[in-house]
């Protein structure tokens, strides 16, 4: 789960990281009022779940409240990487002497969280990593012991020469690590970590990604989810316990299991079609899940044919059949449907579907070819 910059900063502030003050505005007038309260020059920053906000024109300086208002009016409603900006963070502009990068990410190769720090902050860290890897220090942390004091100091010395700053930075590393573990993050980043001309070290921007699997343990983090920052169909799917990602094609896919779902989409493409979505109904299915899945697929006007590909293991194919029957009784289908199912309780599923006027297929390739043909307007429903 992605969270916004202002939410990540709140988390960091609570563990003691020095973060500049800031407030969120949803209208230009609110932005002007916040700028007036802070006085002086402010920065107006788009709050969206996308990188490259600055390059997209979503981060701007404003010298006066009036300017903050007009800038906020431009940024609010702006599209950044396909996401609409609904709120901006207004924060006093900081004087910057130097910028560093600090990040922690769970690294699948090291099988640990890895700290990455660099003096070359504020710019694209991937670029630094690719062209000058020696400018980045990577330090894997054994989570059974946590970030040890000498490790924090080591990180600090990579960023600063002055021992006082090294100690301040080391403290920030410990605090960032605490926030990372407490919030169940898969990524936490301060970029840039700036030094002001007065020698203070401040987290000017922050990004955090929370492991979805931690939400059960941290229900308070679920409250940070911003449904307006995601596509409505994806929000809908999540509330029905489905994984759904909208794509541009016209073959609506409903599959059990992520690997088989991806392989099904690939096969649609192989036979000359385009998948309209990725949809995984998961392992232990029930008929209601299938009803929700069909509702989500049919709400996409691009969908010209629907393809079910179910390999019953834990998933009972008769549950899926009952779901299809219930859903189509509530809302008769306007597009053809191809149903391929095999595995657990297949005979019952086939009988249920047959009694309700649906035919089924057992071969995956034949079913995909059929669906692609139907989406192109050829043949009649299987």
């Amino acid at each position, binding site marked *: 789960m992605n969270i916004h910059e202002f939410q990540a900063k709140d988390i960091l502030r609570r563990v003691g990281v020095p973060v500049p003050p800031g407030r969120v505005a949803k209208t230009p007038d609110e932005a002007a009022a916040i700028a007036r309260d802070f006085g002086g020059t402010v920065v107006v920053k788009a709050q969206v779940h996308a990188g490259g906000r600055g390059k997209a024109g979503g981060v701007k300086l404003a010298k006066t409240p009036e300017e903050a208002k007009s800038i906020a009016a431009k940024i609010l409603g702006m599209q950044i990487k396909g996401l609409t900006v609904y709120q901006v963070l207004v924060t006093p502009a900081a004087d910057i002497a130097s910028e560093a990068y600090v990040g922690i990410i*769970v690294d699948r190769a090291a099988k640990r969280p890895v700290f990455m720090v660099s003096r070359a902050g504020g710019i694209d860290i*991937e670029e630094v990593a690719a062209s000058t890897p020696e400018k980045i220090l990577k330090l894997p942390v054994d989570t059974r012991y946590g970030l040890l004091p000498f490790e924090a100091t080591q990180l600090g010395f990579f960023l600063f020469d002055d021992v006082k700053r090294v100690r301040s930075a080391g403290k920030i590393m410990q605090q960032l690590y605490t926030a990372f573990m407490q919030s169940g*993050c898969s990524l936490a980043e301060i970029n840039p970590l700036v030094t002001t001309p007065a020698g203070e070290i401040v987290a000017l921007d922050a990004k955090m990604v929370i492991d979805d699997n*931690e939400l059960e343990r941290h229900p308070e983090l679920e409250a940070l989810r911003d449904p307006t920052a995601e596509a409505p169909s994806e929000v809908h799917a999540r509330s029905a316990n489905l994984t759904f*990602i909208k794509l541009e094609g016209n073959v609506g896919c409903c599959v059990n299991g*992520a690997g088989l779902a991806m*392989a099904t989409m690939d096969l649609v493409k192989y036979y000359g079609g385009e998948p309209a979505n990725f949809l995984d109904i998961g392992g232990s299915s029930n008929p209601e899940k299938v009803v929700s899945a069909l509702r989500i697929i049919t709400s996409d006007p691009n969908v010209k044919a629907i393809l079910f590909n179910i390999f019953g293991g834990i998933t009972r194919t008769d549950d899926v059949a009952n779901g299809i029957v219930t859903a189509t009784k509530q809302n008769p289908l306007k597009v053809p449907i191809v149903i391929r199912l095999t595995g657990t309780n297949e005979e019952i599923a086939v009988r249920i579907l047959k009694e309700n006027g649906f035919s089924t297929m057992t071969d995956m390739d034949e079913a995909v070819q059929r669906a692609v043909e139907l989406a192109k307007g050829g043949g009649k429903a299987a």
Partner: protein
Amino acid sequence: MSIFIDSGTTLVIQGITGRDGSFHAKQMLEYGTCVVAGVTPGKGGQRFENKVPIFDTVARAVKETGANTSVIYVPPMFAADAMMEAADAGIQLIVAITEGVPVLDMTKVYPFVRERGARLIGPNCPGLITPGRSKVGIIPGRICTPGNIGVVSRSGTLTYEVVYQLTRAGLGQSTCVGIGGDPINGTNFIDCLVAFEADRDTAAVAMMGEIGGTDEQEAATFVKKHMKKPVVGFIAGQTAPPGRRMGHAGAIISGSSGTAGEKVAAFEQAGMGVARRPKDFVDLLRARIA
């Protein structure tokens, strides 16, 4: 022979009285797996289906029954502890089926299990099956048949699909292993390839990967350098849009690393057969073991 499990596998089921645990315990018993114990804290002394003794702890189950393998069906928030409990009790092979284990939990489990010399498979995996002899996990037994193809995969239902097609085409399997799709898992492709290369009942290997990470590329390098047996590979997610999560936590593309194209190219460079569709496994494997 086979890899990891065979007729000598003696199994303890952690979470045997739960919804998933009890369902799959029955399936494993029906398949003929040697299930010697179950563990549910507080239910020690009872019996599952009037047959399998239940213990409060894994340590007790191992002491009383000599179980050498464990399979875990406990809920995600308790799964990490269950894996460490099994390793600490001296279990040599731990198979974690549970989906949704927090990745930070796994950063503690991985070194803990390793230091105790145990092998962990999963989490978030379908387990493994040596057809006709032993099944540990949830792979449907009836889609498998004994034979000489080793199967290793990051996916669940995609594995079933391929195994089903192999079985229908008369290509039986030595062992099928689902290693799981999470970012941190106990056993990777290379671990399985090493075992298949050494297994005299395996003639060729079918390997199913996914987008995200670099495990498949590393496996391809291993195949090129160390394997005499033919390997045929498949990558799911050719049509996945970049940078978007597809349900498996591991299926994240970061930068150019981990794309389907990159992985397929690595397979080709290693001289592996590349299945473009799941059904292509049949002809590619047949040609290589003829």
